[in-house]
């Protein structure tokens, strides 16, 4: 029997790796992948609590999170294609049209 806080610590560590990826990488596609990592960390937490409380609601929420991740990936990758068509780059530092 693994204590529940081990799962929470694993989720925290995965989430932090995702945060580092979002903050430091310049490739927009890798930034999207880091967001997927963070969503997975959230899912681990939800399922761990669902297991601990012996309730199914956490897993239902995890399914909604996965749905969100799919929608976000579709929209995000569509945006990247549109962006690449217009600016010929996927470098986050060169995408500064809205920068003041």
């Amino acid at each position: 029997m693994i204590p529940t806080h081990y799962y929470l610590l694993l989720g925290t560590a995965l989430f932090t790796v995702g945060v580092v990826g979002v903050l430091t990488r310049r490739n927009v596609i890798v930034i999207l992948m880091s967001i997927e990592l963070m969503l997975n960390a959230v899912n681990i937490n939800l399922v761990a609590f669902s297991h601990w409380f012996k309730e199914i609601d956490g897993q239902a929420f995890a399914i909604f999170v996965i749905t969100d991740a799919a929608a976000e990936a579709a929209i995000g990758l569509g945006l990247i294609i549109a962006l690449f068509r217009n600016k010929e780059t996927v470098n986050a530092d060169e995408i500064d049209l809205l920068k003041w």
Partner: protein
Amino acid sequence: MLPQIAFFSLSALALASAIMVITRRNAVHSVIWLIVTLFSVAGIFLMLQAEFLFAVQIILYVGGIMVLFLFVIMLVNLDVLAKQQQFNRQWALALVTAVILLAELGYGIYQGRSGFTLPPAAASPPTQGNTQTIAMALYQNYMLPVEIASLLLLVAMIGAVIMAKRKLE
């Protein structure tokens, strides 16, 4: 003993491959490492007795979203970017901030660990499988959220088509 071994090896695999995801120069390698992470997380789901989510994770994430990523990487020319600097100028500050975040959250969870030694809520013995239980929850208690999620997917689908279209009339 066996659950501990399984948990720690799965966690180590998930964390190591997650770090590989954010450090690889080639985006295709990042996708491959992300698939390894997703499989490890699926294993963690299996350890938490969430068999349905284990299947959904593999079918939807690995089979769906990751293939989408690979397609886009092949559509977008990444050769120029692969030769450039991979990390932006604020990476040191970002790393320090993230370590502080990890320390705070880890400290909070570690301090609150005694709460998890309390006996968990009394569970009725399972009369149905995991998939059946989730289906009951989704289609009874979460009927409206499921409908909203399906609407969200529809909007995302239309949005993705419009984004990727060559020219709007």
